[in-house]
């Protein structure tokens, strides 16, 4: 029997000390209390004032106790459920758990048949969702694009309507406005079997963005209030650029990002105490020659690790970022940037890592980048799973039995563990040269394309209820009527 024995069940990573985290924490509280944010929403200002905030015009300052009280109300652990009840597709958010999924709203898309870059279409949505549904290391769904071939106000709604029937994995839904939010929610509630059933088993997360620096926009609050009122788990994630819309330093960008996200938290918890809240945001550098938000920069991974530690310090899950690249194509740069950020994100235990499949600095979505990153995440997860140390895994008796000059291939011990101890690649090639040559000298890119095509031919996601299909048609028809009126 073991006694007074400590176990590390995985690889550990730690950047900040408690002292540093405390300093970051109080830095963000200081900004909220002394600088304040412009909250461009009358109702939200009223809610905050009632909760104890100081309001002067649009400027809202939060006493630190109010933020700390709000942090205390938000849960660290909760579950996002698969819409079809398949427990394998549930996401349990909590300490030491990293999950991955694509990102939203790229304007361009890598065509699945031709591999050409072209605008994202409504017909791409179901295909992306199907690929997400099939990939074993992709846990939640976003669409990788802004639908360009429907009415320009309805892209988000069509997107959700296309994703929902084609994957049972939890969805992260963004929207343009509260009308989108209502339509999206109507679809999810129909499938869940009512508002109460949805609240017990939420199947999607609502995503909203404040504006950096230090502005809580009217649309973001509209959507936030809708989510909070209907008890929809909420992501409130700013996207500051170091050196542009935030301080140039890595420590300096974490402070306003946290403040911007916590303003959303404070509004949400005032409206709906205990609402599952996922802190943002996406932190990276503004490239000083290309003037873009760099999605493949090492600073992205570093800053994201910093804000993840701060989130965990205050007891919130974090909306992490990884699997993305500034490369325009499926090349070595895309694989290096994507894989390293997936690995680093997993090491931080970032709760929901999004933007897997972004290329061209988030301008172009690619299911091929996504599918290749599925492999990188599988690889990563084998590492983060760590080394289990116990009597059986130590295998001292097996070593004794085999002795010098024997081998372990025939041992029961080997048979018992070889599938669980080793990671088996889906895309990487380990064959010898001749076999590789015989199989057509394929590259990772060839095999990734083949896998995506294979998934689209063979994979059938579970279907939604016929009633929900009717609701989707109704919601879209009503939205079309609204925008044309």
């Amino acid at each position: 029997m073991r006694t007074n024995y400590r176990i590390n069940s995985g690889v550990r990573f730690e950047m900040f000390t408690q002292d540093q985290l405390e300093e970051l924490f109080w830095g963000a509280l200081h900004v909220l209390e002394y600088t304040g944010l412009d909250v461009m929403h009358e109702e939200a200002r009223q809610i905050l004032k009632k909760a104890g905030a100081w309001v002067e015009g649009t400027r809202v300052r939060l006493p630190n106790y109010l933020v700390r009280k709000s942090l205390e109300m938000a849960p660290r652990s909760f579950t996002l459920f698969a819409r079809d009840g398949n427990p394998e597709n549930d996401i349990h958010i909590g300490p030491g758990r990293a999950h991955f999924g694509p990102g939203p709203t790229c304007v361009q898309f890598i065509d699945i048949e031709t591999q050409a870059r072209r605008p994202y279409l409504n017909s791409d949505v179901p295909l992306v969702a199907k690929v997400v549904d099939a990939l074993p290391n992709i846990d939640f769904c976003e669409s990788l694009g802004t639908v360009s071939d429907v009415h320009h106000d309805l892209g988000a709604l069509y997107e959700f309507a296309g994703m929902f029937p084609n994957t049972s994995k939890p969805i992260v839904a963004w929207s343009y406005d509260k009308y989108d939010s209502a339509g999206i929610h109507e679809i999810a509630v129909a499938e869940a079997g009512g508002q109460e059933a949805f609240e017990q088993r939420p199947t999607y997360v609502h995503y909203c963005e404040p504006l950096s620096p230090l502005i809580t926009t009217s649309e973001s609050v509209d959507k936030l209030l809708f989510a909070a009122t209907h008890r929809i788990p909420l992501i409130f994630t700013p996207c500051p650029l170091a050196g542009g819309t935030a301080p140039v330093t890595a420590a300096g960008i974490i402070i306003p990002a946290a403040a911007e996200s916590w303003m959303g938290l404070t509004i949400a918890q005032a409206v709906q105490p205990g609402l599952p809240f996922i802190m943002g945001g996406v932190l990276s550098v503004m490239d000083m020659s290309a003037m873009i938000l760099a999605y493949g920069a090492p600073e992205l991974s570093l800053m994201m690790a910093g804000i993840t530690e701060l989130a965990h310090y205050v007891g919130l899950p974090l909306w992490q970022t990884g699997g993305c690249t500034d490369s325009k194509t499926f090349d070595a740069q895309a694989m290096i940037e994507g894989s390293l950020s997936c690995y680093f994100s997993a090491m931080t235990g970032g709760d929901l890592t999004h933007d897997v499949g972004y290329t061209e600095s988030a301008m172009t979505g690619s299911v091929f980048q996504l599918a290749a990153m599925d492999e990188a995440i599988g690889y990563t997860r084998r590492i983060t799973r760590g080394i289990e140390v116990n009597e059986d895994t130590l295998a001292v008796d097996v070593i004794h039995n085999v002795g010098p000059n024997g081998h372990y291939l025939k041992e029961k011990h080997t048979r018992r563990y070889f599938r669980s101890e080793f990671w088996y690649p889906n895309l990487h090639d380990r064959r010898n040269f001749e076999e590789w040559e015989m199989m057509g000298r394929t590259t990772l890119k060839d095999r990734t394309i083949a896998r995506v095509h294979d998934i689209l031919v063979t994979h059938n996601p579970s279907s939604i209820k016929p009633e929900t299909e009717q609701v989707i048609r109704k919601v879209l028809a009503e939205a079309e009527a609204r925008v044309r009126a």
Partner: protein
Amino acid sequence: MSAILEQLSAVVIEGDETKSPGLVQKALDEGFTAKEILDNALVVGMTEVGIRFKRGDMFVPEVLMSAEAMQTGLGILRPLLAASGAEMLGKIVMGTVKGDLHDIGKNLVGMLCEGSGFDVIDLGFNVAPEKFIEAVKQHKPNIIGMSALLTTTMRSMGHTIKALEEAGLRAGVKIMVGGAPVDREFADRVGADGYGSNAPAGADLAKQLMGAA
């Protein structure tokens, strides 16, 4: 195929070495000949194992389990096959070449060749050219199989083939080579008749060399 032979080949595929001897005995009791059991159950099972391995559905420890299940069954059949003078697919003498102590791969090829219906004589590891010559004289095999894991020992394959030529024995046998550093080009250079890139490929090659595949 009869139910008992089907059951036996399924047990080989599952790799359950505790069940195969009992089933072999039962098949004998039902009146099947040793050769029928070998060809229609054990070989059938191992052929399927080879296919699954190539497809990536089975892994080496599982192939070994199957090979063991096949061998425990074959243990009962061997004396009967010898007594009846049943014609095997061919005879293979194999070994890991001089200087090399690695025999996992060679053993696996040997078992798969047995699973294909060959009579296999295993010379072990660190086998010098003279030992191969002696074995050829004694056993009169159709095929010699040589294995090496090290880049430093693979040249010993060339030495062995040269020694066989000098002893006037080369023309009477086919030679196949394999092992991690070996490739087709090397096999051609040392004058082998064939090269297998993995264990099932080695067994397939043996069949090809006999004109049976």
